[in-house]
């Protein structure tokens, strides 16, 4: 009997007892769904937690400070830096040529003052002085504007300029909106401190998207005099995490506009305020940090914390996998039970098959295929169900996180997971079906006339 005929026969036999087949498939499907959902959620949680530890940037990210290294704390994740040391473009080039360095992103930081918009956004507890007693919708949102309002006309902060095209490498997580478009000199992303200065909570982050903010800088002029510069920018995004220090993030072009008398960052020998170095792999972070220290700069990277937390998360994944595997083992018992019942019921049929010339291995093949089909069907349905469950749980979790003013989680399902769930279900079913199939194959041909 060839495989095709055996598949046809096995499929027909399954369809002969639809209720039993459906229940067996359901058991496998539920187990596979549980396993899939648990692993998908565990994987997503792992990504989320590790991302939190790396502030949304690369896990292999290293922050280079414009300071000399502190040899006494070289092995710490976040050592106290040594004496200040200018980080030049030449040093950045040297770092970028180190072995195991994937990329280097220079960062410039400039002090700015932010003038709040004339009209606070909806949801703000603040009111501009002129709005006290007015009936405008934006003033206090139904509260007594004069009672608890705190007016903060100017926020002193700093602007960070970096190549935002490498967003995956930067320790940035967006709470709302997007990052400024490439090369923009008129768009910024602000962080939660800016929201707080407006009397907004992070759950109202989207209210500031599309509003404008005025950036004020005081550029040194001749002698003790300074020149005041104004630049209006549109807020296009709100950050969940702080990026090193500073409250607004923009492309370097904006910083250049504000400080046009200074040498633009990354040009000539002008100092750079810091750099993000991405190692090729997490395991290469330590050697890269050592190499940067040898060049003469202090670094920080949460690699120790990431590895430590990663180990704990791995244990959690193992426990969750164990729960899923127990469920799958119970489903396997169901398959074995169903097949043993089928062998008992079909003794005569098996005898007839042998009487008309089937070999032991033909019978074995038919029963194993029945088991495999039940496993494959269950695995397939279970995987779809599990992904749906994980998506549902992620949606609920996101709704909660958003209500708390936190950025949501993206369901992370590595492609081997659904494939492995289907294949794993098949293998478990085949293992469960092996014993009944062997018993069927060993039934004597005489069953055809005995039964």
């Amino acid at each position: 009997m060839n495989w095709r005929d055996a598949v046809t026969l096995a499929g027909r036999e399954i369809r002969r007892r639809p209720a039993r087949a459906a229940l067996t498939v359901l058991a496998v499907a539920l187990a596979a769904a549980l396993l899939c959902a648990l692993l998908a959620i565990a994987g997503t949680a792992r990504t989320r937690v590790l991302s939190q530890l790396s502030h949304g940037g690369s896990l292999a990210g290293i922050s280079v400070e414009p300071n000399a290294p502190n040899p006494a704390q070289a092995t710490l994740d976040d050592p106290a830096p040594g004496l200040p040391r200018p980080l030049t473009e030449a040093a950045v080039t040297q770092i970028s040529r180190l072995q195991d360095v994937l990329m280097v992103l220079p960062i410039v930081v400039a002090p700015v003052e932010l003038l709040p918009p004339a009209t606070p956004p909806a949801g703000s507890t603040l009111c501009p002085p002129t709005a006290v007693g007015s009936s405008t919708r934006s003033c206090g949102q139904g509260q007594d504007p004069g009672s608890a309002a705190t007016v903060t006309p100017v926020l002193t902060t700093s602007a960070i300029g970096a190549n935002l095209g490498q967003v995956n490498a930067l320790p940035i997580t967006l709470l709302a909106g997007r990052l400024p478009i490439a090369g923009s000199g008129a768009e910024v992303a602000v962080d939660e401190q800016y929201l707080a200065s407006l009397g907004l909570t992070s759950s109202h982050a989207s209210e500031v998207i599309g509003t404008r903010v005025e950036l004020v800088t005081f550029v040194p002029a001749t002698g003790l005099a300074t020149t005041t510069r104004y630049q209006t920018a549109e807020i296009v995004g709100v950050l969940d995490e702080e990026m090193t220090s500073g409250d607004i993030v923009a492309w370097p072009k904006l910083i250049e506009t504000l400080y046009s008398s200074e040498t633009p960052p990354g040009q000539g020998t002008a100092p750079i305020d810091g750099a993000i170095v991405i190692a090729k792999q997490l395991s290469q972070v330590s050697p890269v940090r050592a190499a940067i220290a040898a060049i003469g700069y202090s670094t920080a990277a949460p690699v120790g914390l990431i590895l430590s937390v990663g180990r704990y998360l791995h244990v959690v994944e193992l426990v969750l996998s164990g729960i899923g595997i127990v469920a799958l083992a119970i489903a396997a018992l169901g398959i074995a039970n169903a097949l043993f019942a089928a062998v008992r019921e079909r003794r005569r049929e098996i005898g007839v098959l042998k009487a008309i010339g089937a070999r032991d291995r033909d019978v074995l093949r038919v029963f194993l295929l029945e088991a495999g089909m039940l496993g494959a069907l269950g695995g397939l349905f279970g995987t779809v169900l599990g992904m749906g469950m994980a998506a549902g749980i992620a949606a609920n979790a996101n709704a909660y996180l958003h209500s708390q003013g936190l950025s949501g989680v993206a369901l992370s399902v590595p492609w081997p997971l659904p494939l492995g769930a289907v294949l794993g279900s098949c293998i478990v079913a085949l293992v469960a079906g092996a014993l009944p199939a062997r018993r069927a194959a060993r039934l004597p041909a005489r069953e055809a006339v005995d039964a």
Partner: protein
Amino acid sequence: MLHDISLEVAEGEYVSLVGPSGSGKTTLLSLVGGLDHPQSGEIRVGGHDLRALSGDGLAAFRRETVGFVFQHFGLLEALTAKENVELALTLAGVSNAVQRHHRATHLLERVGLANRLDHRPPELSGGERQRVAIARAIANSPRVILADEPTGDLDDATAADVGDLLEQLRAEEGCTLVVVTHHRQLAARAERSLALGAGELVEARGALG
């Protein structure tokens, strides 16, 4: 339990085996058909020494040399009439689906079931089921047809039809036919009728070896 049985059936002969229940008729048929192994003695069918065969060899013997017809029909209920016949061809290694289809259709037409090809056993009458079983038994042109109570579950008229069919096919195929039966009329139609009692051949009509 059979003992002291010495029996020779000529090629193309029609032999019936009769006897009370428990006399060993089915056991004898099982031994001749390679469904069972004798504890002692020798069984030769069409040049095959069945004591020397086991496993795949015995399966090949059953596939190529004998065709079984059972009282309970022995059809796979999951398959249609045509697929039941095709299964015997599949097991015999006919891998071409078109060939199998044509051969199965032809055989079912020969047994008068041209209009029941795609019906499953539960949708067929007892007589029709037995006709499908007979078509399956001759699918691989066996040298011997072994029928165990082929009319046991049929009414007299249908039993007579099945008897006619078996005889007709034996004549057309030129194969040996051994029928175990309680049915007097069917037994009487055989060229030789053997009677078994308590595991021994106790009576015979015709030539007994």
